[in-house]
């Protein structure tokens, strides 16, 4: 009965969708223009690659977060999960030094262990949420604290450092490049393409967004909603693992402060990108733009004296609120 009243909003919805795709890209372009006006070095390939490399950690994690959020969940544990994964990887690799001379094997095992720990941690979040029937916010708030304190405990309150010899061999994973493209950037691009393919072009991706839109409808439509949710959290875990695998050779250490607030940056990237926080609609392309926007703000503030670098967080905050305001406001008006 009341649905006929919604008829007029139909073109508005479409306009909203278009804006969601174009909005983050437009904002990205505006920031690039501002940057280039402020500093002539801004558009140098060196600085642009630097921005892309720095975006890679948050960007890769945010790709996973796009899955979780569009399935109607939220994962607050990713920053701690990254720190814990990094800590265990470093301890494992240091420990293996006493057992084998094959450093490459140590690195490979370390990377595989990282992938395993991240995916398992994601799976655990998913299982606690679906089997335990506890809200994602609460479960991941809990695991956030658990992983954070575990890494503090493992490091005995200090820092876990990767052995020099291992780090030397592992180093190229962060600092190396292929045809001039840094490896983190390549992995970021690969994750983005894969994420886009899965979320937008497979039945699974459609199911993820349908579960987020309305879990009951999904269940009545023959979708195993629990399994979809667990998989979404596992994808998040795998993305955290990938980001951590790239992160470990950068500093070669892990401590209680590793990855602090990454969860919020990842969520911010997703939201700026136009994905709905309440679920049901996810855009990988927007998420990538969101991650780049967040890094760009820091980069631009670094390159100019106009605004203090200490206000980085404030500018990011304004951008997040403005992005969502524009998306919602435009939708409501039309």
């Amino acid at each position, binding site marked *: 009965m009341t649905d*006929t009243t919604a008829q007029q909003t139909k073109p508005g919805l479409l306009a909203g969708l278009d804006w969601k795709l174009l909005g983050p890209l437009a904002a990205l372009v505006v920031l690039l223009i501002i940057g280039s006006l402020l500093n002539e070095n801004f558009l140098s390939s060196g600085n642009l690659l630097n921005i892309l490399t720095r975006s890679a950690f948050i960007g890769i994690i945010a790709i996973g977060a796009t899955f979780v959020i569009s399935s109607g969940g939220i994962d607050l544990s990713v920053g701690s999960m990254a720190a814990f994964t990094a800590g265990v990887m470093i301890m494992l690799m240091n420990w293996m030094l006493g057992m084998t001379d094959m450093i490459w094997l140590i690195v490979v095992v370390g990377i595989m262990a990282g992938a395993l720990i991240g995916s398992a941690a994601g799976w655990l979040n998913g299982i606690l949420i679906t089997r335990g029937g506890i809200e994602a916010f609460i479960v991941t708030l809990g695991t956030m604290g658990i992983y954070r304190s575990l890494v503090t405990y493992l490091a005995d309150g200090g820092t876990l450092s990767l052995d020099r010899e291992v780090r030397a061999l592992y180093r190229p994973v962060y600092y190396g490049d292929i045809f001039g493209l840094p490896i983190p950037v390549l992995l970021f691009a690969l994750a983005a393409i894969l994420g886009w393919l899965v979320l937008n072009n497979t039945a699974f991706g459609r199911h993820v967004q349908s579960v987020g839109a309305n879990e009951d409808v999904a269940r009545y439509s023959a979708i195993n909603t629990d399994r979809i949710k667990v998989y979404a959290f596992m994808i998040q875990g795998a993305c955290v693992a990938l980001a951590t695998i790239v992160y470990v050779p950068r500093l070669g250490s892990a401590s209680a402060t590793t990855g602090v607030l990454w969860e919020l940056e990842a969520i911010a990237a997703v939201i700026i990108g136009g994905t709905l926080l309440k679920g049901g609609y996810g855009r990988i392309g927007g998420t990538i733009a969101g991650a780049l926007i967040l890094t760009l703000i820091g980069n631009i503030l670094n390159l100019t004296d106009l605004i203090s670098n200490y206000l980085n967080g404030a500018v990011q905050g304004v951008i997040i609120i403005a992005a969502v305001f524009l998306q919602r406001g435009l939708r409501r008006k039309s």
Partner: protein
Amino acid sequence: MAPQTTHPAVLLSGTGLRKSYGPVEVLHGVDFEIRAGEVHALLGENGAGKSTLVKILSGLVQPSEGTIALDDKAVAFATVADAENAGIVLIHQEFNLAELRTVEENIFLGRERRKGLFLNKAAMRIEARALLDQLNCAAPVTAQVASLPVADKQMVEIAKAMSRKARVLFLDEPTAVLTKAETASLFALVARLKAEGVGIVFISHKLDEVEAIADRITVLRDGNHVTTVSADGISPDDMARMMVGRELSDFYPEMSAPSAETLLEVEEVSAPSVRRASFDLRRGEVLGFAGLQGAGRTALMEAIIGLHPIENGTLRLNGEACTFDSVAESKTNRIAYLTKDRKGKGLLLANDLVWNFSLFALDKFATPFLDRKAERAAYDAGTQAVDLRAASPKMAAGSLSGGNQQKLLLAKILEANPQIIIIDEPTRGIDVGAKAQIYGFIADLAAEGRGVIVLSSELPEIIGLSHRVVVMHNGMVTGCLTGDDINEETIMRYASGLVSERAA
């Protein structure tokens, strides 16, 4: 029920009330009045406009046209609170209680008794207890509402209305969730309120109850006022005739005869809210399921398709025993269920039509990447088959009219090519034209050799469509009717548990 010698004063009246939602008018100029100390029954089929009228008179929605008068003075209720302050209280079918708060807190919500700055809990508890005692309701006043059985919740609602000193009380299907004894104490209360001069509007599908307590009857049909008559000498049969008002035969399609081959056998199945239910479905058959609200029809079907666990009993599909742990499994075995809750469980209202259409049978289009061309072609064919009228396949499903939503849901399910189709309330909230079309589709599906199960609370629909009718009451199958036994009276006798083919 002493006959009134003079007409008591009219408390609340509506004149020429119209209501449109968007371009669709659902109420076409209806007059209605409630006098002090009368029980005025409001009758009509689903979609006749009863609930719209009640919502207007209780301030929940605004009329598009027409006036409301209280004590012969024109009024406009901007909100429910305005109406409640004027002594007009609506008790919904769905309760309006704060589930996590206590009984006492709910009864006094918004009008708490105070002693200085603080709540006077003792006084409120005593008063709440007294109200509930009048209703013969034993629920403790300190109990959390969520922990109460449904009947007690109903009583809390009524106690809340009484504490508000209601002058006009709307009771929307108040007995749907009550047992006989509870109904009796409710009616005793109604009699007392009547004696105190309260005007009561009684909405119920249980026509024998209407006969028992109504003083006057108003009948609505398709948004029009049909008649208002004194209830004296009006039988439930008369009421049904006034409600339906048209020849039923030409509204329903010709049905082809079912084959003797059995598709599905359900034997002694117990599940949540279902006790030892048995029935069978034949190829080419439309099997109607009748029963009152909460009789367990939906629960039984949801158990069959794997949404709820089957605790006991056997399912046999094409002669082979089977159970389904998920909707995906029953779908693979070519059983599909259309929920009655289109908006909550059937369609993703914010997503586009193609997305909704392919969701149930999405695997067909994933190889492993989605073949959008094939999906769109299937959408075009599937929606054409059900005559779905939409401005664009990209529009949101929530923007469709009720009838088109139902067609989309039907097309979505049919895309999986089920052999057994279970349709729960196939025409709830849709207009007459779309209704006739849906009936036609149901007949066609059966004629194609599928088995169709139709659950409906509209008896004419059940009678017009079904080859056989299974009736449920209180979680049990009380009868399976065929031939001349398929009539309202017989169905209602089985549905109300008066008769049963099996010993309880």
